[in-house]
């Protein structure tokens, strides 16, 4: 799993496919990272991701539970249309904000 830590913010670069198989690894590693580095906010970067099922929703919900106790937030970035559809359908957007990337830079 690729990730980046900036102060109290953890960015997780999600794999191409986010299913039950690789959700396990992300869950374990991000739990450690959040605890050790006093992470408050988590960003899920979907740049590479074009497949996700409900296991991915579970990963997001789990991280939200973890950081929301400290007043942290969970974000999604670089989502394509398919990912937005799944995120919206699952209702997880109630607890997670989606970055709207501007293309005008």
């Amino acid at each position, binding site marked *: 799993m690729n990730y980046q830590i900036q102060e109290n913010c953890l960015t997780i670069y999600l794999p191409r*496919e986010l*299913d*039950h*198989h690789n*959700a*396990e690894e992300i*869950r374990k590693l991000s739990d450690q990272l959040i605890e050790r580095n006093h992470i408050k906010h988590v960003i899920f970067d979907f740049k590479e991701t074009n*497949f*996700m*099922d*409900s*296991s991915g*929703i*579970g*990963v997001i*919900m*789990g991280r939200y539970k973890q950081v929301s106790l400290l007043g942290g937030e969970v974000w999604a970035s670089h989502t394509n249309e*398919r990912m937005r559809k*799944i995120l919206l*359908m*699952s209702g*997880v957007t109630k607890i997670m904000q989606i970055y709207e990337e501007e293309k005008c830079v």
Partner: protein
Amino acid sequence: MKNTNEMELVFDSRSCNEGFARVTVAAFMTQLNPTLEEVSDVKTAVSEAVTNAIIHGYENEVHKIRITCAIEQKTLRIEVEDNGKGIENIKRAMEPLFTTKPELERSGMGFAFMEAFMDKIEVVSEPDKGTKVLMEKTIGKGRETWSTQSL
């Protein structure tokens, strides 16, 4: 039988086979000339059913999962079957957000996704016998075929 085609796939209930299963079904359905979205829908539904069989049906023990696919005209029928522990209360299991394994961070959205992405879903299950999920999707609904005018 005209316009029919079938395939069967049997594999171990290991999580690394989840990707294999959905990609295989996706490859099989390409003969229906689906849109990318239709392929993604089917892949998600297959992934959910197979994940359920692995986590809930067999509770991470390694046994066989069987997928049967049939194409009839424009309709794709998929059956995902395990011989695991079965579902006691199917109605309850299909409620969104209901999960028997919250400790594994299951979101409880599996059946909801299958229902949303497929046209039809039916679950047959008996405790200690196993579970069979039957799903159907008609490809190319609302899409008109067209041809260019001959010169």
